[in-house]
């Protein structure tokens, strides 16, 4: 059964939303979600790479020999990651500093390679574009949610705005590594509870 373009787009937002449904790309999810700003920045950078890589892979899928396809996909992805890296360095230097080595590491984000392999190499350009955009936006939403939970509990602020009264003691635990793991685990549990009903 062929899905429409709209369905390809929407499935990335709930049905296959990373990293909850597709348990891939956990490293950037945990590492950059200390603040909402970083989360959104990382999400958008990944979306850009996903969409561009999906388009190019689906265009070239007839040309790339299947034996060396993974290597070809990785080169395509790495090219776009370099583009993002240079753009961020030029126009969003603070964000570039905050995200650090996690920008070049988008190359090894399994979500991007996974979509190229599982979707873009077997489908036409327009569905691949919709798929990349959907998954990318889904990823951005997840990162925003996780970082909102962690930042609000860990520092008591969201993007500089004080959330709770002055008597609130921030749990600095939430912005450290253990908080990241536990927060993601609990959110995953909530997702499971909601979807099993």
């Amino acid at each position: 059964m062929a899905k429409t373009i709209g369905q390809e787009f929407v499935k990335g937002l709930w049905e296959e939303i990373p990293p909850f449904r597709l348990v891939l790309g956990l490293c950037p999810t945990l590492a950059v979600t200390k603040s909402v700003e970083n989360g959104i920045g990382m999400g958008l950078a990944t979306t850009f790479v996903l969409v561009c890589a999906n388009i190019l892979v689906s265009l070239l899928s007839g040309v790339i020999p299947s034996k060396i396809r993974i290597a070809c996909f990785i080169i395509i992805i790495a090219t776009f990651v370099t583009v993002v890296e240079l753009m961020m360095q030029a126009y969003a230097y603070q964000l570039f500093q905050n995200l650090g080595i996690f920008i070049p590491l988008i190359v090894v984000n399994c979500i991007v390679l996974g979509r190229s392999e599982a979707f873009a190499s077997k489908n036409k350009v327009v569905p691949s574009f919709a798929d990349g955009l959907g998954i990318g936006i889904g990823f951005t939403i997840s990162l925003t949610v996780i970082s909102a939970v962690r930042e609000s509990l860990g520092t008591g602020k969201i993007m500089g705005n004080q959330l709770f009264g002055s008597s609130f003691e921030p749990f600095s635990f939430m912005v450290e590594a253990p908080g990241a793991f536990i927060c993601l685990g609990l959110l995953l549990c909530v997702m499971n509870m909601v979807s099993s009903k």
Partner: protein
Amino acid sequence: MGDYTVLIISSILINNIVLAQYLGICPFIGTSKKMETATGMAGAVVFVMTLAAIITWTIDTYFLKTLNIEFLRTISFILVIASLVQFVEMFLKKSIPALYAGLGIFLPLITTNCAVMGVCLINIKEEYSFLQALVSSISYAVGFGLALILFAGIRERVILGRVPRPLQDTSIGLITAGMLALVFIGFKGLV
């Protein structure tokens, strides 16, 4: 000598690659359900990470930096890692079949293990010398193995317990990893 001891301890315990630097979490969650797969993966990572770090360090210092083409770093590093993994796989298959049987299925997975690429990038970012890069990458790899094996041990026990349904599998896995990370924070005052 003292500097190297500090480097080793901080790379294995304090800045543990998985539990403090958030790298290589996908294989950490994915291969930790059984002790056997965990030890296999740990072995493969130690092997590949050390080789990859040495090669990428050499390329970066003598090739990319001298020609002023550092913007190609991401592409060249991932190519080196991907081809290295492929090469190691072919080499082991041909000459050391026993080791290949043990590590075989984990090798392709390593290409997309961000810990390997991450360590290569950290070595460059910290401007380590060759020996420092070598020592730190071995220590990081040992740290990865240590965390993975500890985690697999805990997970094998967790499966036996009665876990509420929505928490099962990855969810409880992540929470367990959080507890383990909490333990590793305790090492912070060590150096």
